[in-house]
């Protein structure tokens, strides 16, 4: 049974990339909301993006691709990305997938070097 996280329950105004830049940042959402829920439910979570006013690319990248940078496995991140809900703006789902894939490519390149 997966746990549903609704972004709108935390904020209607998702913010910048890092906590130091402003409230409700991608880093804050990842550290304070996503990571505790991932640990608690062994990665079985569904993130509902609907209801917020909008998302900047920095927020999305830091929240989801940032999980890979924080050391979470590819399987967990892929399962979260495949369980995303965004009925209001379905293009967000593809966009997040791109950020995750970009991060995977970057990490692979780093390993090669």
């Amino acid at each position, binding site marked *: 049974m997966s746990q549903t996280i609704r972004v709108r329950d935390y904020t209607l105004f998702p913010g910048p990339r890092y906590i130091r830049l402003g409230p409700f940042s991608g880093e804050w959402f990842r550290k304070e909301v996503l990571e505790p829920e991932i640990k608690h439910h062994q990665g079985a979570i569904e993130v509902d993006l609907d209801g917020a006013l909008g998302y900047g690319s920095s927020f999305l990248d830091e929240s989801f691709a940032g999980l890979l940078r924080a050391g979470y496995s590819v399987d967990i991140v892929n399962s979260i990305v495949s369980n995303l809900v965004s009925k209001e703006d379905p*293009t967000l789902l593809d966009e997040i997938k*791109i950020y995750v894939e970009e991060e995977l490519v970057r990490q692979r390149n780093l390993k090669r070097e």
Partner: protein
Amino acid sequence: MAASFINKRCDNRIKSARRLASKLIKRSKLGGPIFSGSRKQPRVGNKKTSPRKLIRVVCPAMLSLHSPALHTKTVKFISEFEKAVRAAQFGSATVHVCFRDTKKIFASGGIYLLARCEVIVNRYRNVKYRVSVPPSLPEPGHIGPQPIAHSVLCQIGFYKLLGIKQPRGAQLPSVDCWYVSSSEKADGEFIGNAIEKLGKTGAEARDLYRSSIEAISNASEHAYSTAIQTDKVFTIKKWWLFSAVLDNEAFFYICDLGHGIPKTLEYTQSPTLLEHIKSLLTKTMSPEQRRGFVEDVHKIKMSTMVKETRTELSYRGKGGGDLKSYISKHSGSVLRIYSNKGAYTFKNKKLPVRSNSLVNELEQTNNKKYETGYNNKHSIEGTVIGWSMPLIVS
């Protein structure tokens, strides 16, 4: 010889003083006044009290960054204002800002005026100000003269900033949906409030939020970065936001007074990516044009291509930078970026491209998307990014 000349001069002075004194004595004997001057009470002390000096700065007819001529006049006016304030601080004078000739203040001019003046006023704190209010002028489609420029000054808080009581007078009815704010933090709530006031909802609000939250995030993260070498001293590290409705168009402008995009770009993006973008842009250029590809406008153009080039490099089709994403989706909308000397415009409508454009027309004609750019004479020492959208799409 010299001594006798001096003695002669002294004698003459004494004689003339005696003559005056004897006249006064005679007058007083006849019942007239003892003092010959008109002063009723003799001056006390040695200090002379002179009226406070007034340094006058006249605002141009239009305050805007939209064309090279208007840009030059606006930047010059604000530089003159700064000079006047500096002089007034050290010469204990009053600065008189005269808006008597000002017909219109556009959103780009208004936000830039507010940001620059806030920094100047905070730097020189002991200066007194006087303002001549802009006149109300007839506007097509309105009965009677309209106080457009005055309304902009009231709404952006210009009078309050100078410590002046807001002059009385009517304001435009549309000011209720205008919004002005500033912060050091990239707080999306400010953007949300502005969008709500403009009455934007649904996909339009989402797209505008996406573009503008990235703009204020960039301002907070990079605009005043200490990693970039500069001679500038940033006393205020803020961004300013101004949204308004004027002439059936909604405006959404964000301004910062940091390093400017042309300087931050090299620090925020990898040299490989920038080289790749440069090669894409200069592919069709002559060697001479390529050598000249160092202007601020080119760097602004390159910054708008970072995201789409990155996704292209990772073999994915989703393009369009965040700043441009709103324009790509909404017909009739325009993105304007002014950074240091550069000016870049991205339009989603069928309009002729400027003949002096330095940036090529890259988008296809059938998409009705055009981009233009040029360099101005003077730098705005910062960045102004604005989106404008028609309320009635023809």
